[in-house]
Protein backbone atom coordinates (compact mmCIF):
# COMPACT_ATOMS: atom_id res chain seq x y z
CA UNK A 1 0.00 0.00 0.00
CA UNK A 2 2.78 2.43 0.92
CA UNK A 3 4.12 2.01 -2.58
CA UNK A 4 0.89 3.40 -4.09
CA UNK A 5 0.99 6.23 -1.57
CA UNK A 6 4.55 6.88 -2.71
CA UNK A 7 3.44 7.10 -6.34
CA UNK A 8 0.58 9.47 -5.49
CA UNK A 9 2.75 11.77 -3.36
CA UNK A 10 5.46 11.73 -6.02
CA UNK A 11 2.96 12.58 -8.75
CA UNK A 12 1.26 15.41 -6.90
CA UNK A 13 4.06 16.96 -4.85
CA UNK A 14 7.69 16.04 -5.19
CA UNK A 15 7.88 14.94 -8.82
CA UNK A 16 5.14 17.31 -10.04
CA UNK A 17 5.07 16.89 -13.80
CA UNK A 18 4.85 20.63 -14.38
CA UNK A 19 6.99 22.09 -11.60
CA UNK A 20 9.85 19.61 -11.89
CA UNK A 21 9.19 18.08 -15.33
CA UNK A 22 8.36 21.41 -17.08
CA UNK A 23 5.58 19.66 -19.07
CA UNK A 24 2.37 21.31 -20.26
CA UNK A 25 3.72 24.85 -19.98
CA UNK A 26 2.02 26.14 -23.16
CA UNK A 27 -1.57 25.81 -21.93
CA UNK A 28 -0.50 26.39 -18.31
CA UNK A 29 0.63 29.94 -19.12
CA UNK A 30 -2.24 30.70 -21.50
CA UNK A 31 -5.14 29.37 -19.41
CA UNK A 32 -3.94 30.31 -15.89
CA UNK A 33 -5.18 33.85 -16.60
CA UNK A 34 -8.74 32.77 -15.75
CA UNK A 35 -9.52 30.73 -12.62
CA UNK A 36 -12.72 29.11 -13.90
CA UNK A 37 -10.97 27.97 -17.09
CA UNK A 38 -8.04 26.65 -15.03
CA UNK A 39 -10.39 24.50 -12.95
CA UNK A 40 -11.91 23.11 -16.14
CA UNK A 41 -8.57 22.43 -17.79
CA UNK A 42 -7.12 20.92 -14.58
CA UNK A 43 -10.09 18.56 -14.36
CA UNK A 44 -9.78 17.64 -18.05
CA UNK A 45 -6.01 16.98 -17.77
CA UNK A 46 -6.46 14.78 -14.70
CA UNK A 47 -9.29 12.83 -16.37
CA UNK A 48 -7.41 12.28 -19.63
CA UNK A 49 -4.02 11.59 -17.99
CA UNK A 50 -5.49 8.88 -15.77
CA UNK A 51 -7.11 6.89 -18.57
CA UNK A 52 -4.46 7.40 -21.26
CA UNK A 53 -1.71 6.32 -18.83
CA UNK A 54 -3.66 3.14 -18.06
CA UNK A 55 -4.49 2.42 -21.71
CA UNK A 56 -0.95 3.05 -22.91
CA UNK A 57 0.46 0.91 -20.11
CA UNK A 58 -1.77 -1.98 -21.15
CA UNK A 59 -0.68 -1.70 -24.79
CA UNK A 60 2.98 -1.25 -23.85
CA UNK A 61 3.18 -4.16 -21.41
CA UNK A 62 1.26 -6.61 -23.59
CA UNK A 63 2.45 -5.58 -27.08
CA UNK A 64 5.31 -3.13 -27.32
CA UNK A 65 7.77 -3.92 -24.54
CA UNK A 66 10.74 -6.12 -25.52
CA UNK A 67 9.46 -9.70 -25.68
CA UNK A 68 5.99 -8.56 -24.59
CA UNK A 69 4.11 -10.60 -27.16
CA UNK A 70 5.20 -13.95 -25.81
CA UNK A 71 1.60 -14.49 -24.53
CA UNK A 72 0.38 -14.06 -28.11
CA UNK A 73 3.00 -15.46 -30.47
CA UNK A 74 4.81 -17.87 -28.21
CA UNK A 75 8.51 -17.98 -27.50
CA UNK A 76 9.60 -16.75 -30.95
CA UNK A 77 8.30 -13.33 -29.90
CA UNK A 78 10.83 -13.10 -27.06
CA UNK A 79 13.28 -11.18 -29.25
CA UNK A 80 10.70 -8.75 -30.72
CA UNK A 81 11.16 -5.25 -29.33
CA UNK A 82 8.59 -2.65 -30.44
CA UNK A 83 9.37 -0.02 -27.83
CA UNK A 84 10.66 2.35 -30.52
CA UNK A 85 7.14 2.83 -31.95
CA UNK A 86 5.53 3.35 -28.56
CA UNK A 87 5.69 7.11 -29.18
CA UNK A 88 3.43 6.96 -32.24
CA UNK A 89 1.01 4.48 -30.71
CA UNK A 90 0.74 6.56 -27.51
CA UNK A 91 -0.01 9.72 -29.53
CA UNK A 92 -2.70 7.93 -31.55
CA UNK A 93 -4.30 6.51 -28.39
CA UNK A 94 -4.32 9.93 -26.70
CA UNK A 95 -5.77 11.70 -29.76
CA UNK A 96 -8.37 8.95 -30.23
CA UNK A 97 -9.36 8.92 -26.55
CA UNK A 98 -9.79 12.70 -26.47
CA UNK A 99 -11.99 12.71 -29.59
CA UNK A 100 -14.20 9.90 -28.29
CA UNK A 101 -14.65 11.61 -24.90
CA UNK A 102 -15.43 14.91 -26.64
CA UNK A 103 -18.14 13.28 -28.74
CA UNK A 104 -19.68 11.45 -25.80
CA UNK A 105 -19.75 14.64 -23.73
CA UNK A 106 -21.29 16.70 -26.53
CA UNK A 107 -23.92 14.09 -27.17
CA UNK A 108 -25.09 13.16 -23.70
CA UNK A 109 -23.68 15.71 -21.25
CA UNK A 110 -24.05 19.11 -23.01
CA UNK A 111 -23.68 21.03 -19.70
CA UNK A 112 -20.40 19.19 -19.01
CA UNK A 113 -19.30 20.44 -22.44
CA UNK A 114 -18.95 23.95 -21.04
CA UNK A 115 -16.89 22.78 -18.06
CA UNK A 116 -14.76 20.10 -19.71
CA UNK A 117 -15.56 19.70 -23.40
CA UNK A 118 -14.15 22.93 -24.79
CA UNK A 119 -10.74 22.19 -23.23
CA UNK A 120 -10.37 18.75 -24.77
CA UNK A 121 -9.03 19.89 -28.18
CA UNK A 122 -6.33 21.77 -26.25
CA UNK A 123 -5.28 18.60 -24.50
CA UNK A 124 -4.30 16.50 -27.49
CA UNK A 125 -1.27 18.72 -28.01
CA UNK A 126 -0.48 19.12 -24.29
CA UNK A 127 2.97 17.65 -23.55
CA UNK A 128 2.00 16.71 -19.99
CA UNK A 129 -0.36 13.95 -21.13
CA UNK A 130 2.24 12.35 -23.42
CA UNK A 131 4.87 13.00 -20.74
CA UNK A 132 2.91 10.89 -18.26
CA UNK A 133 2.80 7.97 -20.69
CA UNK A 134 6.52 8.24 -21.48
CA UNK A 135 7.55 8.51 -17.81
CA UNK A 136 5.29 5.55 -17.01
CA UNK A 137 7.33 3.44 -19.45
CA UNK A 138 10.65 4.54 -17.93
CA UNK A 139 9.42 3.80 -14.40
CA UNK A 140 8.31 0.36 -15.67
CA UNK A 141 4.90 0.61 -14.00
CA UNK A 142 2.25 -2.09 -14.28
CA UNK A 143 -1.05 -0.96 -15.87
CA UNK A 144 -2.73 -0.48 -12.47
CA UNK A 145 0.16 1.52 -10.98
CA UNK A 146 0.39 3.50 -14.23
CA UNK A 147 -3.26 4.53 -13.89
CA UNK A 148 -2.60 5.70 -10.33
CA UNK A 149 0.51 7.53 -11.55
CA UNK A 150 -1.55 9.12 -14.36
CA UNK A 151 -4.16 10.28 -11.86
CA UNK A 152 -1.51 11.66 -9.49
CA UNK A 153 0.40 13.51 -12.22
CA UNK A 154 -2.82 14.93 -13.63
CA UNK A 155 -3.93 16.05 -10.17
CA UNK A 156 -0.47 17.58 -9.60
CA UNK A 157 -0.75 19.50 -12.85
CA UNK A 158 -4.27 20.65 -11.92
CA UNK A 159 -3.06 21.75 -8.47
CA UNK A 160 -0.26 23.79 -10.05
CA UNK A 161 -2.52 25.58 -12.56
CA UNK A 162 -5.21 26.32 -9.96
CA UNK A 163 -2.63 27.77 -7.55
CA UNK A 164 -1.16 29.84 -10.39
CA UNK A 165 -4.59 31.10 -11.47
CA UNK A 166 -5.33 32.19 -7.90
CA UNK A 167 -2.01 34.02 -7.70
CA UNK A 168 -2.53 35.75 -11.03
CA UNK A 169 -5.90 37.10 -9.93
CA UNK A 170 -4.03 39.08 -7.30
CA UNK A 171 -1.59 40.27 -9.95
CA UNK A 172 -4.26 42.08 -11.95
CA UNK A 173 -4.41 44.75 -9.26
CA UNK A 174 -0.67 45.09 -8.64
CA UNK A 175 1.54 47.54 -10.51
CA UNK A 176 4.55 46.23 -12.44
CA UNK A 177 6.60 47.30 -15.46
CA UNK A 178 4.39 46.80 -18.51
CA UNK A 179 6.93 44.60 -20.28
CA UNK A 180 7.05 42.35 -17.23
CA UNK A 181 3.33 41.65 -17.14
CA UNK A 182 1.94 38.50 -18.74
CA UNK A 183 4.40 35.71 -19.51
CA UNK A 184 7.46 36.91 -17.56
CA UNK A 185 5.64 37.38 -14.26
CA UNK A 186 3.86 34.03 -14.68
CA UNK A 187 7.21 32.30 -15.20
CA UNK A 188 8.66 33.99 -12.12
CA UNK A 189 5.66 32.90 -10.02
CA UNK A 190 6.00 29.36 -11.37
CA UNK A 191 9.64 29.39 -10.28
CA UNK A 192 8.67 30.40 -6.74
CA UNK A 193 5.92 27.74 -6.73
CA UNK A 194 8.47 25.13 -7.87
CA UNK A 195 10.82 26.19 -5.06
CA UNK A 196 7.99 25.76 -2.55
CA UNK A 197 7.11 22.32 -3.92
CA UNK A 198 10.74 21.17 -3.81
CA UNK A 199 10.50 21.49 -0.03
CA UNK A 200 8.28 18.39 -0.05
CA UNK A 201 11.26 16.36 -1.27
CA UNK A 202 12.69 16.22 2.22
CA UNK A 203 9.46 14.66 3.52
CA UNK A 204 9.86 11.37 5.32
CA UNK A 205 6.98 9.04 6.19
Amino acid at each position, binding site marked *: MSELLGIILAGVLTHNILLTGFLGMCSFIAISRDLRASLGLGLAVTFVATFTAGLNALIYNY*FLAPGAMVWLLGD*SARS*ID*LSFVSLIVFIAVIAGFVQVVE*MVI*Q*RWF*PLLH*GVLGIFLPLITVNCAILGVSLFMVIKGLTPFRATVYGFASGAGWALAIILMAAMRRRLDTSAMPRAFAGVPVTLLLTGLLAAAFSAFAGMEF
Partner: protein
Amino acid sequence: MHLLVTILVPVLWILAVGAFVLLVRKLVLPSGPVRLEVNDRLMDATPGSSVLEALGTAGVLIPSGCGGKGTCGYCKVRFRSGDVPVLPTDSAWISGEELAQGYRLACQHRIFGDMAIEVPEKYLSIRRVQATLKAARMLTPDIRELVLHPDESLDFKAGQYVQVEIGDTEEQRAYSIACAEGSQDIILNVRLVPGGLGSTWLHSLPVGKSLFISGPYGDYELPGEHGTQLLLVAGGVGLAPISSLVRTVAATRNDMSVRVFLGFRTLEHAYYLDEFGSLSHPDLEMHVALDSEQREGFYHGFVHEMIKNVYEPPQKQPVSVFLCGPPPMIEAVMDVLSEMGISRSDMFYDKF
Protein backbone atom coordinates in the same frame (compact mmCIF):
# COMPACT_ATOMS: atom_id res chain seq x y z
CA MET B 1 8.96 -12.62 -39.94
CA HIS B 2 10.11 -10.15 -37.30
CA LEU B 3 10.10 -7.19 -39.69
CA LEU B 4 6.53 -8.05 -40.71
CA VAL B 5 5.31 -8.23 -37.13
CA THR B 6 7.24 -5.11 -36.19
CA ILE B 7 5.36 -3.14 -38.83
CA LEU B 8 1.97 -4.84 -38.53
CA VAL B 9 1.34 -4.60 -34.77
CA PRO B 10 1.67 -0.81 -34.39
CA VAL B 11 -0.16 -0.18 -37.70
CA LEU B 12 -3.02 -2.41 -36.58
CA TRP B 13 -3.18 -0.61 -33.24
CA ILE B 14 -3.33 2.86 -34.83
CA LEU B 15 -5.90 1.81 -37.41
CA ALA B 16 -7.90 0.19 -34.61
CA VAL B 17 -7.91 3.52 -32.74
CA GLY B 18 -8.86 5.41 -35.93
CA ALA B 19 -11.65 2.94 -36.74
CA PHE B 20 -12.88 3.03 -33.12
CA VAL B 21 -13.13 6.83 -33.26
CA LEU B 22 -15.07 6.72 -36.52
CA LEU B 23 -17.28 3.89 -35.20
CA VAL B 24 -18.14 5.86 -32.06
CA ARG B 25 -18.85 8.88 -34.24
CA LYS B 26 -21.30 6.75 -36.21
CA LEU B 27 -22.90 5.37 -33.04
CA VAL B 28 -22.98 8.56 -31.05
CA LEU B 29 -24.32 10.72 -33.80
CA PRO B 30 -27.79 10.01 -35.24
CA SER B 31 -27.29 8.65 -38.73
CA GLY B 32 -28.57 10.62 -41.68
CA PRO B 33 -28.89 14.36 -42.05
CA VAL B 34 -30.91 16.43 -39.55
CA ARG B 35 -33.19 19.33 -40.52
CA LEU B 36 -31.96 22.87 -39.87
CA GLU B 37 -34.64 25.54 -40.28
CA VAL B 38 -33.14 28.95 -41.05
CA ASN B 39 -35.77 31.75 -40.98
CA ASP B 40 -38.26 30.15 -43.38
CA ARG B 41 -35.85 27.99 -45.41
CA LEU B 42 -35.23 24.28 -44.67
CA MET B 43 -31.79 22.73 -45.16
CA ASP B 44 -30.05 19.46 -44.29
CA ALA B 45 -27.05 19.32 -41.90
CA THR B 46 -24.60 16.58 -40.94
CA PRO B 47 -25.12 15.71 -37.27
CA GLY B 48 -22.28 16.65 -34.94
CA SER B 49 -21.18 19.64 -37.02
CA SER B 50 -21.43 23.13 -35.56
CA VAL B 51 -24.30 25.39 -36.66
CA LEU B 52 -21.74 27.66 -38.35
CA GLU B 53 -20.31 24.74 -40.37
CA ALA B 54 -23.81 23.50 -41.28
CA LEU B 55 -24.81 26.98 -42.50
CA GLY B 56 -21.54 27.23 -44.45
CA THR B 57 -22.03 23.93 -46.27
CA ALA B 58 -25.64 24.93 -47.04
CA GLY B 59 -24.33 28.11 -48.69
CA VAL B 60 -25.49 30.59 -46.04
CA LEU B 61 -22.35 32.52 -45.13
CA ILE B 62 -22.67 34.37 -41.80
CA PRO B 63 -19.69 36.47 -40.64
CA SER B 64 -17.03 34.60 -38.66
CA GLY B 65 -13.68 36.14 -37.85
CA CYS B 66 -11.99 33.43 -35.78
CA GLY B 67 -12.86 30.31 -37.75
CA GLY B 68 -15.02 28.71 -35.06
CA LYS B 69 -12.84 29.17 -31.95
CA GLY B 70 -15.41 31.35 -30.14
CA THR B 71 -12.93 34.24 -29.85
CA CYS B 72 -14.56 36.89 -32.11
CA GLY B 73 -18.29 36.86 -31.37
CA TYR B 74 -19.34 37.66 -35.01
CA CYS B 75 -21.50 34.56 -35.59
CA LYS B 76 -24.35 35.53 -33.24
CA VAL B 77 -27.68 33.90 -34.24
CA ARG B 78 -31.01 33.43 -32.42
CA PHE B 79 -31.98 29.83 -31.58
CA ARG B 80 -35.78 29.55 -31.86
CA SER B 81 -36.02 25.87 -30.84
CA GLY B 82 -35.30 24.12 -27.54
CA ASP B 83 -33.40 25.34 -24.51
CA VAL B 84 -29.85 25.68 -25.81
CA PRO B 85 -27.36 25.82 -22.85
CA VAL B 86 -25.30 28.99 -22.38
CA LEU B 87 -21.58 28.27 -22.82
CA PRO B 88 -18.84 30.45 -21.27
CA THR B 89 -17.85 31.51 -24.80
CA ASP B 90 -21.49 32.66 -25.37
CA SER B 91 -21.64 34.76 -22.20
CA ALA B 92 -18.27 36.28 -23.08
CA TRP B 93 -19.72 37.91 -26.23
CA ILE B 94 -23.50 38.18 -25.83
CA SER B 95 -25.35 40.45 -23.36
CA GLY B 96 -27.67 39.04 -20.70
CA GLU B 97 -31.00 39.97 -22.24
CA GLU B 98 -29.91 38.81 -25.70
CA LEU B 99 -28.96 35.45 -24.17
CA ALA B 100 -32.45 35.34 -22.67
CA GLN B 101 -33.92 35.89 -26.16
CA GLY B 102 -32.01 32.82 -27.36
CA TYR B 103 -28.99 34.45 -29.02
CA ARG B 104 -25.90 32.12 -29.04
CA LEU B 105 -22.63 31.79 -30.99
CA ALA B 106 -23.26 29.59 -34.03
CA CYS B 107 -19.71 28.20 -33.99
CA GLN B 108 -19.92 26.87 -30.44
CA HIS B 109 -23.14 24.83 -30.63
CA ARG B 110 -23.43 21.49 -32.40
CA ILE B 111 -26.43 20.03 -34.15
CA PHE B 112 -27.67 16.67 -32.91
CA GLY B 113 -31.34 16.95 -33.70
CA ASP B 114 -33.68 19.12 -35.80
CA MET B 115 -33.15 22.78 -34.99
CA ALA B 116 -34.67 26.14 -35.92
CA ILE B 117 -32.63 29.34 -35.92
CA GLU B 118 -33.15 32.89 -37.10
CA VAL B 119 -30.51 34.93 -38.90
CA PRO B 120 -30.73 38.50 -40.24
CA GLU B 121 -32.51 38.36 -43.64
CA LYS B 122 -29.58 39.84 -45.55
CA TYR B 123 -27.30 36.88 -44.71
CA LEU B 124 -29.62 34.67 -46.72
CA SER B 125 -28.87 36.57 -49.87
CA ILE B 126 -25.13 36.16 -49.34
CA ARG B 127 -23.60 33.80 -51.83
CA ARG B 128 -20.12 32.70 -52.88
CA VAL B 129 -19.63 33.07 -56.64
CA GLN B 130 -16.77 32.81 -59.12
CA ALA B 131 -15.94 35.99 -61.06
CA THR B 132 -13.52 36.74 -63.92
CA LEU B 133 -11.47 39.96 -64.10
CA LYS B 134 -13.02 41.58 -67.22
CA ALA B 135 -10.98 44.79 -67.20
CA ALA B 136 -8.64 46.74 -64.93
CA ARG B 137 -7.05 50.21 -64.92
CA MET B 138 -5.00 52.35 -62.53
CA LEU B 139 -7.13 55.23 -61.15
CA THR B 140 -4.24 56.71 -59.15
CA PRO B 141 -0.57 55.67 -58.60
CA ASP B 142 -1.69 53.18 -55.85
CA ILE B 143 -5.39 52.49 -56.55
CA ARG B 144 -6.42 49.91 -59.17
CA GLU B 145 -10.00 49.63 -60.48
CA LEU B 146 -11.07 45.98 -61.01
CA VAL B 147 -14.12 45.19 -63.16
CA LEU B 148 -15.27 41.69 -62.10
CA HIS B 149 -17.89 39.74 -64.09
CA PRO B 150 -19.51 37.19 -61.67
CA ASP B 151 -20.92 33.90 -63.16
CA GLU B 152 -24.26 34.47 -61.33
CA SER B 153 -25.29 38.07 -60.71
CA LEU B 154 -25.03 39.32 -57.09
CA ASP B 155 -27.94 41.69 -56.42
CA PHE B 156 -26.39 44.20 -54.04
CA LYS B 157 -27.45 47.55 -52.53
CA ALA B 158 -25.38 50.73 -52.89
CA GLY B 159 -22.84 51.03 -50.05
CA GLN B 160 -22.42 47.27 -49.53
CA TYR B 161 -19.14 45.30 -49.82
CA VAL B 162 -17.88 41.87 -50.88
CA GLN B 163 -15.18 39.55 -49.43
CA VAL B 164 -12.55 38.51 -51.99
CA GLU B 165 -10.69 35.18 -51.52
CA ILE B 166 -6.97 35.79 -52.04
CA GLY B 167 -5.60 33.07 -54.39
CA ASP B 168 -5.64 29.56 -52.91
CA THR B 169 -4.69 30.81 -49.44
CA GLU B 170 -7.51 30.75 -46.90
CA GLU B 171 -7.29 34.55 -46.47
CA GLN B 172 -10.14 36.93 -47.36
CA ARG B 173 -10.23 40.74 -47.75
CA ALA B 174 -13.26 43.09 -47.80
CA TYR B 175 -13.70 45.70 -50.61
CA SER B 176 -16.66 48.10 -51.13
CA ILE B 177 -18.60 47.91 -54.42
CA ALA B 178 -18.07 51.12 -56.44
CA CYS B 179 -20.60 50.70 -59.27
CA ALA B 180 -24.31 51.64 -59.26
CA GLU B 181 -27.00 49.24 -57.97
CA GLY B 182 -28.28 46.77 -60.55
CA SER B 183 -25.04 46.70 -62.57
CA GLN B 184 -24.12 43.22 -63.90
CA ASP B 185 -20.42 43.74 -63.14
CA ILE B 186 -18.88 44.37 -59.71
CA ILE B 187 -16.33 47.22 -59.68
CA LEU B 188 -13.81 47.37 -56.82
CA ASN B 189 -11.16 49.98 -55.96
CA VAL B 190 -8.10 48.31 -54.43
CA ARG B 191 -5.40 50.46 -52.81
CA LEU B 192 -1.94 48.79 -52.85
CA VAL B 193 -0.81 48.37 -49.23
CA PRO B 194 3.00 47.75 -49.20
CA GLY B 195 3.53 44.13 -48.06
CA GLY B 196 -0.24 43.60 -47.91
CA LEU B 197 -1.07 40.00 -48.94
CA GLY B 198 -4.47 40.80 -50.51
CA SER B 199 -3.74 44.08 -52.29
CA THR B 200 -0.43 42.85 -53.73
CA TRP B 201 -2.15 39.77 -55.20
CA LEU B 202 -5.06 41.80 -56.58
CA HIS B 203 -2.74 44.41 -58.10
CA SER B 204 -0.78 41.72 -59.93
CA LEU B 205 -3.85 39.70 -61.04
CA PRO B 206 -3.86 39.62 -64.90
CA VAL B 207 -7.10 40.37 -66.81
CA GLY B 208 -8.99 37.17 -67.72
CA LYS B 209 -8.06 35.36 -64.50
CA SER B 210 -10.89 34.29 -62.13
CA LEU B 211 -11.32 34.47 -58.35
CA PHE B 212 -13.99 33.81 -55.73
CA ILE B 213 -16.01 36.55 -54.04
CA SER B 214 -18.73 36.22 -51.37
CA GLY B 215 -21.32 38.75 -50.36
CA PRO B 216 -22.96 41.21 -50.40
CA TYR B 217 -22.30 42.25 -46.79
CA GLY B 218 -23.01 45.63 -45.10
CA ASP B 219 -26.09 47.04 -43.36
CA TYR B 220 -26.52 50.53 -44.96
CA GLU B 221 -29.88 51.20 -46.68
CA LEU B 222 -30.65 54.31 -48.74
CA PRO B 223 -33.34 56.27 -46.76
CA GLY B 224 -36.76 55.51 -48.26
CA GLU B 225 -38.53 58.81 -47.31
CA HIS B 226 -39.20 61.21 -50.10
CA GLY B 227 -36.91 64.25 -50.34
CA THR B 228 -34.32 63.39 -47.65
CA GLN B 229 -30.90 65.01 -48.00
CA LEU B 230 -28.03 62.52 -48.55
CA LEU B 231 -24.66 63.74 -47.17
CA LEU B 232 -21.76 61.63 -48.50
CA VAL B 233 -18.22 62.08 -47.07
CA ALA B 234 -15.20 60.06 -48.27
CA GLY B 235 -11.45 60.08 -47.63
CA GLY B 236 -8.98 58.42 -50.04
CA VAL B 237 -10.10 54.97 -51.27
CA GLY B 238 -13.23 55.42 -49.06
CA LEU B 239 -14.64 56.90 -52.30
CA ALA B 240 -15.73 53.40 -53.51
CA PRO B 241 -19.07 53.09 -51.57
CA ILE B 242 -19.75 56.83 -52.11
CA SER B 243 -19.30 56.34 -55.88
CA SER B 244 -21.89 53.53 -55.78
CA LEU B 245 -24.33 55.70 -53.76
CA VAL B 246 -23.90 58.78 -55.96
CA ARG B 247 -24.37 56.88 -59.22
CA THR B 248 -27.41 55.00 -57.84
CA VAL B 249 -29.11 58.16 -56.50
CA ALA B 250 -28.36 60.05 -59.75
CA ALA B 251 -30.05 57.28 -61.73
CA THR B 252 -33.03 56.56 -59.50
CA ARG B 253 -33.71 59.19 -56.80
CA ASN B 254 -34.33 62.69 -58.28
CA ASP B 255 -36.39 63.56 -55.17
CA MET B 256 -33.27 63.64 -52.93
CA SER B 257 -30.75 66.45 -52.54
CA VAL B 258 -27.14 65.21 -52.51
CA ARG B 259 -24.08 66.85 -50.94
CA VAL B 260 -20.73 65.12 -51.62
CA PHE B 261 -17.57 66.05 -49.71
CA LEU B 262 -14.36 64.25 -50.76
CA GLY B 263 -10.84 64.48 -49.28
CA PHE B 264 -7.57 63.53 -51.01
CA ARG B 265 -3.93 64.27 -50.33
CA THR B 266 -3.21 65.67 -53.83
CA LEU B 267 -5.12 65.95 -57.16
CA GLU B 268 -2.99 63.06 -58.40
CA HIS B 269 -4.59 60.85 -55.66
CA ALA B 270 -8.13 61.94 -56.60
CA TYR B 271 -10.30 59.92 -59.06
CA TYR B 272 -13.87 59.55 -60.49
CA LEU B 273 -14.17 63.38 -60.30
CA ASP B 274 -15.02 63.79 -64.02
CA GLU B 275 -17.46 60.82 -63.93
CA PHE B 276 -19.31 62.46 -61.02
CA GLY B 277 -19.20 65.80 -62.88
CA SER B 278 -21.00 64.30 -65.91
CA LEU B 279 -23.85 62.82 -63.75
CA SER B 280 -27.17 64.69 -64.27
CA HIS B 281 -29.10 65.27 -61.03
CA PRO B 282 -31.33 68.28 -60.11
CA ASP B 283 -29.74 68.90 -56.68
CA LEU B 284 -26.19 67.51 -56.59
CA GLU B 285 -23.28 69.54 -55.10
CA MET B 286 -19.72 68.17 -54.93
CA HIS B 287 -16.79 69.71 -53.02
CA VAL B 288 -13.24 68.32 -53.03
CA ALA B 289 -10.51 69.12 -50.47
CA LEU B 290 -6.75 68.54 -51.04
CA ASP B 291 -4.88 68.55 -47.74
CA SER B 292 -1.29 68.69 -49.07
CA GLU B 293 -1.61 70.68 -52.30
CA GLN B 294 -2.83 74.16 -53.27
CA ARG B 295 -5.01 73.95 -56.45
CA GLU B 296 -7.40 76.32 -58.25
CA GLY B 297 -11.06 75.34 -57.60
CA PHE B 298 -10.21 72.96 -54.75
CA TYR B 299 -10.47 73.63 -51.01
CA HIS B 300 -7.00 73.53 -49.36
CA GLY B 301 -7.18 71.60 -46.05
CA PHE B 302 -8.96 68.62 -44.46
CA VAL B 303 -12.49 67.43 -45.26
CA HIS B 304 -13.96 68.27 -41.83
CA GLU B 305 -12.61 71.88 -42.06
CA MET B 306 -14.21 72.25 -45.54
CA ILE B 307 -17.55 70.91 -44.23
CA LYS B 308 -17.48 73.39 -41.29
CA ASN B 309 -17.03 76.33 -43.70
CA VAL B 310 -19.15 75.25 -46.70
CA TYR B 311 -22.01 73.03 -45.51
CA GLU B 312 -25.30 74.31 -44.00
CA PRO B 313 -27.62 71.53 -42.85
CA PRO B 314 -31.22 71.83 -44.28
CA GLN B 315 -33.83 73.18 -41.81
CA LYS B 316 -36.80 70.88 -42.37
CA GLN B 317 -35.49 68.05 -44.59
CA PRO B 318 -34.29 64.89 -42.71
CA VAL B 319 -30.58 64.18 -43.30
CA SER B 320 -28.87 60.76 -43.81
CA VAL B 321 -25.05 60.73 -43.62
CA PHE B 322 -22.72 58.05 -45.04
CA LEU B 323 -19.00 58.37 -44.16
CA CYS B 324 -16.19 56.12 -45.37
CA GLY B 325 -12.44 56.50 -44.88
CA PRO B 326 -9.67 56.46 -42.28
CA PRO B 327 -10.98 56.49 -38.64
CA PRO B 328 -9.42 59.89 -37.64
CA MET B 329 -11.20 61.60 -40.59
CA ILE B 330 -14.54 59.97 -39.67
CA GLU B 331 -14.23 61.02 -35.99
CA ALA B 332 -13.43 64.63 -36.97
CA VAL B 333 -16.33 64.88 -39.47
CA MET B 334 -18.85 63.35 -37.03
CA ASP B 335 -17.85 65.91 -34.36
CA VAL B 336 -18.34 68.78 -36.84
CA LEU B 337 -21.73 67.46 -37.99
CA SER B 338 -23.04 66.85 -34.45
CA GLU B 339 -22.08 70.44 -33.56
CA MET B 340 -24.31 71.47 -36.52
CA GLY B 341 -27.20 69.62 -34.87
CA ILE B 342 -27.26 66.38 -36.92
CA SER B 343 -27.90 63.43 -34.56
CA ARG B 344 -25.31 60.64 -34.52
CA SER B 345 -28.02 58.02 -35.09
CA ASP B 346 -28.42 59.41 -38.66
CA MET B 347 -24.69 58.94 -39.35
CA PHE B 348 -23.56 55.59 -40.85
CA TYR B 349 -19.80 55.02 -41.14
CA ASP B 350 -17.49 52.35 -42.53
CA LYS B 351 -14.02 52.62 -40.97
CA PHE B 352 -11.16 50.70 -42.56
